[in-house]
């Protein structure tokens, strides 16, 4: 599958994202600079990586959310093609309105980096099918603004529609209803605060994140 990773100034998990994609597909993704206005022809999967786009100034993901490449990314999503945002990428998806809600400052007000136990709430998505019957995984989190917020109506809706994909087993940031990752109604756009690309290797963080990439990209 032909993949692209969008690089904003301040992205810092772009290399990690590329490594994960390459590990699963055998092919390195194209790294697309934020000032481009089109995705490479034939791009089937797009990932918005973690990091601190624009220093996370103003609001996390806000400035990246209005950069030149975003219309192309939105069009990709509107075509029903898979789009994954991790951490800062999730914040960008929220800011562009591709996913509902908001990500606020962690309740502790501290940056939190830890290996986070998660529950897979929906194993039937394009991004989680390879987890099979596995429900409990450990994937690292590392963020300052991952406190998921939405009004009750939205929360009820996304819960009842199966759009809550990952939940924290030990809430690190105050997120409403322990939400760690959500998917859009169409099932092709997922955002999550935990970093699956940091859990693809037994020598580093474990392998619990690998299935996200295998689900969406097919394992090599």
């Amino acid at each position, binding site marked *: 599958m032909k993949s692209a990773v969008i690089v904003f100034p301040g992205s810092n998990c772009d290399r990690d994202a590329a490594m994960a994609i390459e590990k699963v597909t055998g092919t390195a993704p194209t790294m697309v600079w934020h000032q481009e206005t089109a995705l490479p022809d034939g791009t089937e999967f797009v990932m918005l990586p973690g990091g601190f786009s624009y220093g996370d100034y*103003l609001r996390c993901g*806000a*400035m990246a959310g209005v950069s030149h490449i975003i219309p192309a990314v939105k069009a990709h999503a509107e075509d029903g093609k898979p789009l994954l945002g991790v951490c800062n990428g999730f914040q960008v998806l929220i*800011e562009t309105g591709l996913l509902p*809600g*908001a990500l*606020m400052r962690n309740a502790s*007000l501290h940056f939190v980096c830890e290996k986070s136990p998660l529950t897979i709430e929906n194993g039937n998505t394009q991004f989680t099918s390879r987890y099979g019957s596995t429900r409990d995984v450990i994937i690292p989190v590392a963020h300052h603004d991952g*406190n998921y917020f939405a009004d009750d109506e939205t929360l009820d809706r996304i819960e009842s529609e199966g759009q809550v994909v990952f939940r924290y087993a030990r809430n690190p940031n105050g997120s409403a209803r322990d939400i760690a990752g959500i998917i859009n109604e169409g099932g092709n756009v997922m955002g999550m605060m935990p970093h699956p690309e940091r859990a693809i290797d037994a020598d580093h963080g474990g392998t619990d994140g690998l299935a996200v990439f295998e689900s969406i990209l097919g394992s090599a």
Partner: protein
Amino acid sequence: MKARIHVYLKPGVLDPQGAAVAGALKNLGFDEVENARQGKLIELDLSGDDADAAKTRVEDMCKKLLANPVIENFTVEMD
């Protein structure tokens, strides 16, 4: 020209920073603090001299970037 923008969290939106500020002030003995909310103050220097037109543009900036309509309200004052 100068524009001063206030960005507030909407009522009902959780405000961890405000809550922490209120807690810390109480810890310091400022018992009169009942509640605190934290927002942003953005000041822009703008070229041009048509204040009304500029204000419309600044409101546009707020909608496009400076405030997140899901959680925030804003006000604009021109100086």
